[in-house]
């Protein structure tokens, strides 16, 4: 039962989807405030390397070391995002170029590899890593065992994060303000909200989430430090934000769907199905589905309901209102 293809793909889809979910939640928060950050991949890698470093250097019990590592990863991600925030919010630089520059600066040929090399982290396994938390008798329960109880703490934590972000955006005053800042900065400014402060805060929180997403790779999925270990997950996360129409709950569904798509080829390969479609097809589906979703919501009415925050990617300059 628990070896059935569907169960395995869902269980693994959740595991593979978790870093996507963290990164996408972060990007979602940044984009909701009006800041497009294409540097997710770079921030993830910096988070991954610093999280891994923390786990290797903190000589404490597993739980504390991992908690500390996630904290360090989040801080590293936020610090990386701060560069982007300063450039696009204070210096009003082009958000696309700055985001790409961030990826290059921090990515596989940049800071993350520099740090990984300098801190001598490659080629050693993680001293501590995230593991399944529930007893194995629970994990052996049919269907729900592997899917619900066979996951690491990071997965359960991500569910809490989705809930918190969803409630934050829809039910709290701050969330309401953020959405106003991203959709109509001039109106928000007129209402006495500090547009720059909201954007800074959410870009940094976005970076922190991306850092945690990176740590999910280096401490749970891989789990070791390899330069460029995220392998494009940051870009899928950006697609995911679009695909989920900037909504945290849809983000969860999309992340697991995309995670399952990326795991499906391996599952099929292992089982030797003769009719297996090429893995590239299922891997390209997230991107194609994102394009289709974007085209579908491009009419004005749909864009207002499902589309990007209206001021996404535009610097806010007060005189121009």
């Amino acid at each position: 039962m628990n070896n059935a293809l569907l169960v395995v793909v869902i269980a693994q889809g959740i595991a593979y989807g978790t870093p996507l979910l963290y990164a996408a939640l972060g990007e979602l928060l940044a984009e909701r405030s009006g800041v497009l950050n294409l540097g997710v991949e770079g921030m993830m890698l910096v988070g991954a390397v610093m999280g891994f470093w923390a786990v290797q250097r903190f000589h404490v019990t597993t739980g504390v070391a991992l908690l500390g590592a996630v904290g360090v990863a989040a801080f590293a991600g936020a610090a990386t995002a701060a560069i982007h925030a300063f450039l696009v919010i204070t210096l009003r630089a082009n958000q696309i170029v700055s985001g790409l520059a961030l990826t290059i600066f921090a990515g596989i040929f940049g800071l993350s590899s520099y740090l990984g090399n300098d801190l001598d982290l490659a080629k050693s396994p993680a001293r501590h890593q995230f593991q399944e938390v529930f007893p194995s008798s629970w994990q052996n329960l049919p269907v729900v065992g592997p899917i619900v109880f066979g996951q690491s703490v990071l997965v359960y934590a991500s569910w809490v994060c989705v809930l918190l972000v969803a409630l934050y955006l829809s039910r709290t005053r701050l969330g309401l303000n953020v959405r106003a800042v991203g959709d109509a900065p001039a109106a928000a400014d007129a209402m006495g909200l500090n547009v720059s402060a909201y954007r800074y805060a959410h870009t940094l929180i976005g970076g922190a989430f991306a850092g945690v997403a990176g740590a999910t790779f280096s401490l749970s999925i891989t789990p070791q430090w390899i330069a460029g270990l995220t392998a494009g997950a940051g870009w899928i996360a950006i697609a995911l934000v679009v695909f989920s129409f900037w909504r945290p709950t849809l983000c969860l569904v999309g992340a697991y769907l995309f995670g399952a798509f990326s795991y499906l080829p391996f599952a099929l390969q292992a089982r030797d199905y003769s009719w297996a479609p090429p893995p590239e097809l299922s891997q390209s589906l997230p991107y194609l589905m994102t394009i289709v979703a974007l085209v579908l919501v491009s009419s004005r009415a749909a864009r207002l309901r499902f589309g990007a925050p209206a001021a996404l990617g535009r610097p806010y300059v007060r005189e121009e209102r």
Partner: protein
Amino acid sequence: MIRIERRLEQPRWLSVVVPVVSVAFALLLATVVLVATHHPPLHTFRRLFEAAFLDKGALTETIVSATPLAFTGLCAAVAFRMNLFNIGGEGQLYAGAITGATVALLLGGAPSPVVIVAMMLAGAAGGALLAAIPGILRAFFSTSEIITSLMLNYVVALIIDYLIFGSHSYLRDSSGFEASVFPQGKTLPDSATWPSWTIQGLVIPLGALVAVAVAAGVWFLYSRTRFGFEVQVIGDSARAGRYAGMRTRRKIVAVMCLSGAIAGLGGASQDGDFRHQLDPRGLIQANYGYAGIVVAALARYNPFAVLLVAFLLGGLQNAGYTLQGADFPNGLVGVLQGLLLFCVLGGELFIRYRLRFERRHAPATESA
């Protein structure tokens, strides 16, 4: 309290001084990074410079790295000039590499000049077709070209993977045992090898010359033709373009196609000049498309400056490859490139705006 206000006049000297100061500032920051991680900065910079430009054969390798960057840089510059953010240069380059290699294999027996010209045309067409998708979506559905062109990069990367690793396609080498264990692209026929010229040990590939020609062509197109004039006007103010009776939608599609064609040409040059097969791993790992956007931004979208910046960044990249090793800080190249771009990008502000330092006063409140 610092206030930022728009400059009424932009003195000429600023557009020279600001980039220079920006680059110097980037080097300063890099020095800080190096010192903080216990690497001797001067020594490191000197080795980088030597490996990029002075060592034996270094210049040739730098041109190899710079050629694709010039293509993707021009690709980005052409589109960004009209405020069209085509970040699909990466995928458009792959597309050109695919169509270029296909045509080369199909025409294998034909005389070399025919094959080479056909490869260029096919590469340009492949890139243009791919770029037309986000272009049309933007022009007729106002779908953001940023996300669509970005997504297509990954789709094409998977297609190119599929052609070589996932299937027994026409492009895949299926001769012999080795080829079935380590899949790779079919070697292109000799007639598809682009010529190169050696001047005192410096090898100049045809692709580099094509890139220079394209840069000149883009410059001519944008500064001397009606088409370029319309692109400038629409890029500056779409309303003014409509006022003057310009066809904005057609121009969006045309510019996207042109941009994609240039990247596609770069893909064909990869096939013909350097790799002589469809090489998915090599192309995907190189990240030419994204680096090209950086090149274009550093060059402030000027085609000739793109060539210069591509040469310099190509040198940096080449030095990074050559110096890879235990004693050389890995990843320094990306850090340097990133810092350069951050500083130049930040410096732009000082050309367009000026800072006014003033005493903090109560922020102007507005009664609601």
